Structures are given as C-alpha cells and as structure tokens.
C-alpha cells in the first residue's frame, strides 16, 4: 500500500514538472492579465498618462450600460401632420434634461401618437453586443455542423483520403491575417472572385455586390468566412471522436439492418456526445473572441455593422489608450462567456 502511494506521488511530481511550463505561461499571459483587467475596470487607468490612476468605482460600467427611455411627443406642423423633434434637442445643452446629456438614440418605436426612444450612453457597445451575439449564433451551427459533415466524409479508408484531410485542414494552418486579406479580395465589390463567380454561373445576370461595404451583407460575409476558416480544426476533433466509436457497434447495426440515418442517429451521434460538448464550447468561445477578421477586413465598418466586443476592447484599450475602458469590455465579455459556458455545460450534462 505504501509502495503504491509513493509511486503515485512520484509520477505525480513528474506530471507537475511536465505541466509546469504550460502552467507558468498560462498564469503569466492569461490568468494574471485577467486579474489586472478586472482591477483596471474600476479605475481610470490609461496606457500612458502623467496623471495618477484613480479608483472610479462603477463609472466605467455605467458608461457602457447606462440607458434611458424617453417618450417624444409629436409637434404638429401647419397641415397637422405629426413631426417628431430630433433626439439631439433633448440630449445637447438642454438644461431641462441634464440627465440625458451625452446620450444617443439607439432605436425608437412608435407608440400611438408618440414615439418611444431608447437612449444609451454607449450605443456602439450595444451594437457590438448584438453583433457578437449574431456571430456566435450563426457560427456555432455553421462551423460545428460543417465540421461534422467533413469529418463523416473523410472518416473512411479510401486511397488518397489524406489529401482531402490536408486540404480541409489547410485554412487552419494558414495565418488568419493572410486568410482575411485573401477574403478581402474575394469579397471585392467590383471584380472580386465571388462576384465574378456568381456572374459566371448566372451568365452575367448577377449584379456585383459590395459584400464588405454593404450594411446588409458585411456581417454575413464575416460569418461565412470565419466559419470556413475554423471548420478544419473542429473536423479533426470530430474525427478523433468518430474513431473512438467501436467498429463492433457498426457491425451490430449492419447486422440488424439499420439504415444509414439510423446508424448515425443511434450509434454515431451518442458516441460523439462528449466530443460535441467540447466542439460546442470551443466554437462558442472562439466566436466571442472574433477580432482579426474585423481588424483586417472591415474595421467595424460599414456603419458599425461588423463591430465586435473584442475589436472594441482593443480599439479602446490600445487605439485610444483607454485601458480601463478596454478592460471593462473584457470583464463583461468574460462574464457573458462564463455564463453561457456554464449554461451549455448544464444543458449537456449526463442525465442518469
């Protein structure tokens, strides 16, 4: 018994020694900065400033999340048609509404005769939040499903299958900056590859679209490109999951005369359960952290339609040297991702 215990501690020590480099790196570059970000979000920390850093309480959070709802009554012109005064009438230099100073209209909805306007301290942040949510909701099924499809396709013994595996995996190995630059050319509004391709298959009937310059298409363009770029990585994870499923199960299914779909539904999919959880959580986290594509391809344009949380965190923290503002976004993002991960973990737990 003692023999056994000492052997365990020994190998334990070796284990720790092997993990040490990773632990040090993660602690230095991920855990420590996170605590810094948390602390900075309660201060007015700047990147460079002679002014001393001060504790500001929740001011940074209030600046991001503050909003008000106002009702705007119409003014009648000579014909009696309702005409709404501009929101800036209330928010700029108006001594009657000091609490609205500096706010912007996020959106407004008609309410009978009147108009209800939602004002926010930081409209851009809210747009980032919405865009990021859309990105996650779209990329998770596209990338996860696409990767599973590819994994099923290449999980067979064929001559030259490694060639296909390599091709599917290639976008993951190429630097995302390079990929983004290439896709910028693909999406080019005049003579990009995509426009030319669509014009060719429709025999010229297709009118060129400025994919990245159009508020309707820019975010979808980013979604399509991002899903494609990461699909190979998750394909490999799915593949590793597929290969842990015992071949005897498939034999049994075949003998009992199960159809292809039944085999997938009752053998493959249950066997992939844990893999699915990993893929789901990893894609969710990656989609929340989307940054390079935006930085290289759109800069958040047009009209903030491709702004994301991480892009704004970097833009504010380094571009505008407002470390506290960037940190605050990072902390909020952390809380959102944490909440969603816990929820996913709960929903996908093993039920007995």
């Amino acid at each position, binding site marked *: 018994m003692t023999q056994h215990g000492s052997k365990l501690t020994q190998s334990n020590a070796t284990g720790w020694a092997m993990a040490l480099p990773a632990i040090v790196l993660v602690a230095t570059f991920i855990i420590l900065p996170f605590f810094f970000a948390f602390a900075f979000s309660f201060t007015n920390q700047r990147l460079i400033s002679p002014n001393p850093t001060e504790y500001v309480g929740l001011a940074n959070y209030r600046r991001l999340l503050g909003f008000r709802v106002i009702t705007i009554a119409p003014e009648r012109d000579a014909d009696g048609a309702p005409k709404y005064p501009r929101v800036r009438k209330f928010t700029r230099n108006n001594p009657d509404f000091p609490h609205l100073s500096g706010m912007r209209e996020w959106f407004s909805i008609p309410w009978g005769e009147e108009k209800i306007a939602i004002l926010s301290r930081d409209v851009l942040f809210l747009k980032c939040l919405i865009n990021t949510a859309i990105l996650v909701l779209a990329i998770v099924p596209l990338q996860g499903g696409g990767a599973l499809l590819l994994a099923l396709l290449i999980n067979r013994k064929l001559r030259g299958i490694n060639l296909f595996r390599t091709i599917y995996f290639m976008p993951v190995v190429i630097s995302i900056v390079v990929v983004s630059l290439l896709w910028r050319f693909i999406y080019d*509004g005049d003579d990009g590859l995509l426009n030319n391709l669509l014009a060719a298959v429709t025999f010229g009937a297709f009118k060129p679209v400025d994919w990245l310059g159009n508020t309707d298409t820019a975010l979808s363009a980013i979604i399509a490109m991002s899903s494609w770029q990461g699909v190979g990585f998750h394909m490999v994870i799915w593949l590793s999951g597929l290969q842990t499923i015992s071949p005897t199960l498939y034999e049994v299914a075949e003998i009992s005369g199960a159809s292809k779909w039944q085999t997938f539904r009752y053998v493959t999919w249950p066997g992939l359960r844990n893999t699915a959880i990993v893929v789901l959580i990893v894609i969710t986290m990656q989609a929340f952290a989307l940054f390079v594509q935006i930085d290289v391809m759109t800069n958040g344009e047009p*009209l903030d339609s491709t702004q994301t949380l991480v892009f704004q965190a970097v833009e504010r923290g380094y571009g*505008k040297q407002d470390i506290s503002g960037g940190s605050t976004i990072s902390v909020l993002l952390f809380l959102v991702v944490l909440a969603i991960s816990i929820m996913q973990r709960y929903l996908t737990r093993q039920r007995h």
Partner: protein
Amino acid sequence: MALYARQSTLDELGLRSPDLDKPWSGEEFMAALDAAISSGNYEYTIDMGMAWTGEWYPYAFSPLLQSFGGDIVDRSTYQTAEGVLNGDAALAFGEWWKKLFTDGYAPGTSQDPADRDTGFIGGKYAFAWNGNWAAVLTMDEGVDDLVFLPAPDFGKGPTIGAASWQFGISAGSEHPEGAAAFIEFALQDKYLAAFSDGIGLIPSTPSAAAMTKNYAKGGKLAVFFDLSESQALLRPVSLGYVVQAKVFEKTLADIANGADVADTLDAAVDEINTDIERNKGYGHK
C-alpha cells in the same frame, strides 16, 4: 498634399487650371466633379483614398473641414470640440462629405487598396487626393501630363495637412550630447537629400531640397514645396489628439457610409470632450 489630375483631363472637361493665387472654390470643385461624371469616362470622379485607414483620415481630410471653417477641436483652449466639430461649418462639411460618397462621386470605405494605388494611373478616377509620396510612382507609371492642383477653398481658405517626424532626446538620457551629435550627423543635408531621393519625401531644409532630383528648383515635385508653404496647417497640437484622430477617422467613415451627419458629429464631440475631461484637460493652460 495635392489634388492629382491630368492636364488632358482639365482640357477635355474645359476646366480652369487653379493655382495657389486662385485655387478652385468649393463650387468650382464640385462643378469639376460633375463635369467628370457627365463625360462618362470615369468609374468615379475622385479618389479620396478611403482604403487608407488610420492617420490618413485626419491628415488628409481634417484640412478640408478647416477650409469649411470647422475643426477637430477648439484650438484656442484645446478643452472642447463643441461648436467646432458640430457647428454650422462642420455640419456643412459633413453634408458635403456625405454627398461625395452617397451620390457616387468617390469610392467609399470598401475601396480595394489596389485601386487606391493604381486607379488614378489606370484612368478609373479623374482626380485623386494624394500626397507627394505617390507622385514619383504615378509619373513613372506613365502619367506624363500629371499636374498637382492646390486644395480647393471651401470658404475659409484652402488648407492641406502638414507634418514631419521629429527626433527627441529623453530627459533621462545619460548621454544627451552624444545623442545630439548623432542627430546633427544624421540630419546633414546630404542625408536628407538621400532620404528624399530614396523615398520621395519633401526634404525639410531648402538647402537639402536644392540637392535632390525632384525638389530642386524646376524639379518635377518642387510644387509641393510651395503648396506646403502656403496651405499647410498642423493638426491639433495636443496630447488629446491621439483619441481625437481616432474619433475623427470613425466619424468620417460613418458619414461616408451614410450615417446622419448631425448625430454622428454630436457623438464625436461627446467622445472627444469626455476624453479631455477624463484626462484633466491634457495639461493645456
């Protein structure tokens, strides 16, 4: 900075050649763009260089705002942008700026960077708003009747951006004399001339200019010397400029993409003022 054009374009469209004594007015400028549209020979009339993000925006475009009578920040105090970046002059500038893109005069923020480099040379664009650094390439690529027109006057005089790189010695340096000696050595006319010949920049002293290929008297780019001398205006000399430049860039990109002018300028003013406030006025007295 100059408005790049071909002499042949000016002749073909029947346009007056503006010079430093009599630059185009805002109306003449827009009339020139309309003439270019009517000719049907160009994909876009003017290339503002929207593909170049970053500092290009305040460098190239804030002088146009100043020519309207607005500015990025109130330069008498550097404490507020209210009234200068969202006053009547700035609103007029904003409406004009928006029209350039929404009415199809100029390619917008999604411009292909390659078109920015070669669009004017290839005849896609009738005019281009560009800096002296692109001049040599443009001439080498075969635009032999290239002319550099001064910035138009939108009411408060024609202005273009100005800038130079500075050497500095840290106050904590242990060997300031050594550093000073190095700077003095590096800034000899022969090196300034070599820099200019190598990368096309305007040399910073007249004596160095005389030694260069392009900026010596009668040189192909000597006109940039005169343009800078008579039209150049510095960007705001304030530590707050770091943020102001970023805000200005986003504001102009948003307006070019069709955002409401007054709301966007208001938001820019708020962001700039909040930043100045949070930095305790950036030390301006």
